[in-house]
């Protein structure tokens, strides 16, 4: 295959081969990264919800009866998309703990988890994804 431009003919045969090879490599690698991110985030949220001593306005949130912890749900929407959330039928006060009210300071267990998951995910992304690009080599 070639495309004709104003300046002459450009051969894109090797480019196409490279792109096809990359697409074959990406699928499993992206899945690996998404799974890693999901596990990392889930672990962070779980540890933020299972604190020991009572510390108002600080993380982790104290786990007394475990209702807030049980409300935490994660769900696979597609193999590449996970949802994390709190079930309001289990604990209707989850949002008040996260955002704070007049009577208590916020304890943002989700936001904090996302913040601390960002960096490891970036490093994992760099290690796996960029290596997979390198592995394809020259077409």
């Amino acid at each position, binding site marked *: 295959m070639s495309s004709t431009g104003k300046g002459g003919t450009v051969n894109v045969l090797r480019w196409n081969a490279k792109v096809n090879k990359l697409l074959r490599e990406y699928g499993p690698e992206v899945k690996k990264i998404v799974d890693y991110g999901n596990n990392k985030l889930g672990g962070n949220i779980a540890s933020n919800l299972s604190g020991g001593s009572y510390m108002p306005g600080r993380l982790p949130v104290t786990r007394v009866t475990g209702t807030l912890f049980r409300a935490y749900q994660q769900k696979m929407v597609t193999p590449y998309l996970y949802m994390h959330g709190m079930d309001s039928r289990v604990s209707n006060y989850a949002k008040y703990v996260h955002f704070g009210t007049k009577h208590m300071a*916020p304890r943002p267990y989700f936001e904090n988890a996302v913040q601390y998951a960002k960096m490891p995910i*970036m*490093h994992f992304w*760099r290690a796996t994804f960029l290596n997979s690009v390198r592995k394809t080599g020259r077409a």
Partner: protein
Amino acid sequence: MIRNTYIVEDIQDCIVEYLQALQVSAPWNRWTIIYGYPNEEKFNLEEVLIYVQPPKFQSGEIKNQGSQIGLGQWMMRLGVWNDRLAGGAEEIGIAESQILYSFRHKGRMADTTFDVTNSAAYTGTTLLAQGIQIDRIEGPTEVLKNVDTNEFRSEFDIFLKG
């Protein structure tokens, strides 16, 4: 310059002092600006409450095809809170727009001078002179909307160049 020492409270000080310097005229003189999250004793819904939470240093986003990994930035949360008797939705709208204006308009940040005391006393200084550069402001986000119809609360995220 305050930013060089990376003392978290100093950055918070500068932002609070900057906002308090705007309180020489309306509408800012109608509002209260406090440090940190309002606890129960400080809570006063008779006027708009603006609370400035301490900044956090956090990792930014990858730019330029993975070259600048771990790009850092400061993130600050700034909230506005009032109730129906203190002007309600209209008053909080004015406060939100004023905050946006104060952190988006470079001229206002350059012209507003304030005094701040940390390890040294600075008089007539500006945000830029203290090395605090606002990268962007995101918001307002309505927090816990529809929980109490008499209360209005929204938050902004301010990102400072690290």
